[in-house]
């Protein structure tokens, strides 16, 4: 194990623990015993197979949105709009599911729906990349604002052409079971969307580190001007990276709609975009690290929800934990820099003494 990787592991674990400790201490304000609450949080995770599987269910959309942020991050681009792309994917998935169910065999329909979701999210993301490439628009701002546009598009769709037949609430009809993503562990909610998410992480890792395209993405991320000199068109990379990023986040929406919700309701999963950013930061943008970080955050969500049900602790504690963990993770970046610096100095000293 290289000392750098060891540092990463040690500091990240410390950061997560510190984040949990601080948010746990705040439970004292509610008159709750933090140790008991944390005991409930972690103890309840393993109370039965259904709950354990739910950790992975919750981790699934997080992997997609974290990848969406992490992938553009490697090109030194900021896609802060994964939430909107996630919603767009959800709308696309539910729309085509309702259209295809009963008309096409389930498997074929699912493949087509996934492909259309990728296309929709990719075009939405690609548009942001194109605006950056063509007009030098600030992708950070554009992607941020695009979330609000997507949210309003979703609200509009749910109020009009996608609204349930009863026309009571802004939500769609439930999907036919033929277009549900199959569950691969019986008596749980764990659907193949999870496998798809893990494959996406591995696939993005291969794409980034084992292909010429990935090399170009990272080259633009490291030093755009040097990459341009070497004949890499950074503009093409902007568009391609954002296309992939948008498609990934949209797939998260597809997997939630067809795998878990089996319908679309207004304002579902409102924190999936920002949690994804947190996870990508915790994993330092590494696609494989994202798998583990997502599972950790999935566990916090499941445990946090149970904690809320059992001991009346508000579910906002999850946001609080997430926030503190993120801040400590950023502080751990600083600690790693200091350690790395110290090692470098020790190395130099040794070299001078020789």
């Amino acid at each position, binding site marked *: 194990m290289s000392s750098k990787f060891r540092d990463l592991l040690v500091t990240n674990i410390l950061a997560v623990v510190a984040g949990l400790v601080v948010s746990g201490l705040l439970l004292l304000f509610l008159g709750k015993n933090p140790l008991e609450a944390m005991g409930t949080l972690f103890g309840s995770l393993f109370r039965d197979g259904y709950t354990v599987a739910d950790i992975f269910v919750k981790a699934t959309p997080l992997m997609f949105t974290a990848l969406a942020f992490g992938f553009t991050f490697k090109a030194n681009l900021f896609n802060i709009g994964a939430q909107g792309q996630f919603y767009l994917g959800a709308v696309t998935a539910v729309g085509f599911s309702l259209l295809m169910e009963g008309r096409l065999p389930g498997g074929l329909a699912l493949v087509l729906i996934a492909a259309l979701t990728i296309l929709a999210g990719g075009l939405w993301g690609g548009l942001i990349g194109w605006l950056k490439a063509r007009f030098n628009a600030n992708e950070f701002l554009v992607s941020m604002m695009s979330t609000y546009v997507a949210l*309003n598009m979703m609200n*509009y769709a749910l109020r009009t052409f996608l609204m349930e037949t009863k026309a009571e609430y802004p939500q769609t009809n439930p999907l036919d079971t033929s277009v549900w993503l199959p569950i691969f562990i019986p008596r749980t909610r764990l659907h193949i969307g999870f496998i798809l998410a893990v494959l996406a992480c591995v696939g993005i890792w291969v794409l980034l580190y084992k292909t010429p395209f990935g090399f170009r993405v990272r080259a633009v991320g490291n030093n755009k001007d040097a990459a341009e000199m070497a004949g890499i068109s950074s503009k093409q990379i902007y568009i391609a990276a954002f296309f992939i990023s948008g498609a990934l986040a949209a797939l998260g929406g597809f997997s939630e709609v067809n795998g878990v919700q089996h319908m679309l309701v207004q304002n579902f999963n409102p924190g999936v975009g920002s949690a994804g950013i947190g996870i990508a930061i915790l994993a330092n943008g590494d696609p494989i690290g994202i798998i583990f970080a997502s599972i950790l955050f999935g566990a916090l969500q499941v445990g946090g929800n149970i904690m809320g049900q059992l001991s009346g602790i508000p579910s906002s504690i999850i*946001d609080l934990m997430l926030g503190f963990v993120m*801040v400590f993770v950023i502080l751990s970046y*600083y600690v790693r820099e200091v350690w790395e610096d110290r090692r470098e100095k020790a190395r130099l000293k040794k070299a001078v003494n020789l």
Partner: protein
Amino acid sequence: MIISLLTRTITMGTPLLYGSLSEVYSERSGVMNTAIEGIFLMGAWAGFVGTYLTEGNLLIGLLAAVLAGILTAALYGWITIYLKQHQIVTGTAINILALGICAFFQRVIFGIPLSPLIVRPFQPIAIPLLSKIPVIGPILFNQNILTYLLFILVPAATFVLYKTSLGLSIRSIGENPEAGDVAGLKVEQIRFLTILFAGIMCGIGGAFYSIGYLGLFTTTIIGGRGWIAFAICFLGNWKPLGALSGTLIFGLAEALAIFMQSRGSGVFPNELFIALPYILTIVLTVGRRSFNVPAKLGVPYKKEG
């Protein structure tokens, strides 16, 4: 009708101007305040809590908002300026943390209330004589105290930035921190000060939504307005007067959105008007041509050696 629309433009523009004016300062010194959305939220929340718990004392609420803004900004400034961590990443983290803190402590303090909690917000004060001027009077001189404060703050901010040595220091360390350092300027200290200033201003800006306008608090009360203020700084070419004109455009967009929604469904869906300010941000971001971006914007200053 036009007069009421323009009056609302000024009202809706007020918090945006607090945000964008402070963003001009921090970005000119080289730091993007990407925690702006979180600081707005903290301001809105603390302002509401302070006012509610003192049975409607708006001044205490405003002070609480400023304090919350300063604390949040100080955390952001410490991590980005002194520990030199990534500004966008840190801002994102703090925005999430702010959301968690507000939601959690709102629950700690108020439990689950049976009826919505409301306070009486700052009321418009008609300025004698001036408010009687036709057209301009009701638009500009029948606003609340937070808006009037800007009548002083905008010229003051312009003056300080361009005509004082402090302003010169701020501008120079955003362009060339090395030279500033050699000339004896404390780069990190000045940057930290501009961020604290942003904490005060964005705290007030956030509080405007809760205790200056709506009289209530929800965790979605800011809804990206901090980011719009962030965008206005950028669209206004990093100038206080640019921020002012940008604010007027966005204030008008928000006023139009409210107006069209209250008029009920026409040809266009309501959602289009709600999304209007955000769409406008994208269009203007794409359409702008001139750039006056501070050379070292977003780059932490690291001394050699």
